[in-house]
């Protein structure tokens, strides 16, 4: 089991299942791998909405509802 949720993983995994929780960390090699996937057309970034920064509260409410498809992007300035 792979998770980025640091808390809440079952303390004891069952049946020999191995688990790992990690913190996401941006590295150039990974960003370049993502770029290749996007430019190949196999990874399409999912952005449900682009909202101005002053609607950040609304964006958080939408995300908290757990029904957002992909990301909501906040735009700063123009």
């Amino acid at each position: 089991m792979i998770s980025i949720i640091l808390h809440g993983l079952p303390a004891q995994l069952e049946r020999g299942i191995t688990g790992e929780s990690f913190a996401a960390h941006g590295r150039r090699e990974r960003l370049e791998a993502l770029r290749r996937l996007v430019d190949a057309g196999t990874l399409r970034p999912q952005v449900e909405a682009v909202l101005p920064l002053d609607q950040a509260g609304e964006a958080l409410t939408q995300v908290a509802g757990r029904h957002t498809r992909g990301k909501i992007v906040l735009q700063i300035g123009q």
Partner: protein
Amino acid sequence: MAGGGFAELALASADRLAPMPGRASFAEAAGLVIGGGTAYQGLADRGRLQPGETVLITAAAGGVGSAAVQIAAALGARPLGVASPGNHDYLRGLGASAAFDYHAADWVRQVRAAVPAASTCCWTAPGARPATRPSALSATAAG
């Protein structure tokens, strides 16, 4: 970048930067770094997902999950998505082999029935309800 990301000019370590994809807008690229980067790190680097393996992805329609489904498919694996029924067609469009509804009391049994060997890897994205995580574990095979 430790801070100051909103500034017009910022100092960043070169090993944390890469050119934007030519095919992505600024908004798409902004969403890609967190959602795609997290999914890639978990599936490819930590999970070492192999072609032909099955991976169960919770919160599969969310920011990390939607990237995880596509990246798993791009790696030649078989992604199974867990999400609300209204997102099931959406997940199949992203490349999910099958979609499951976490509202169903027996969704774990449904996963096991669809995949006789159960899944070899399980990815829990941050958007999943806490109660979904132990269930996802019980749908996962050892290894």
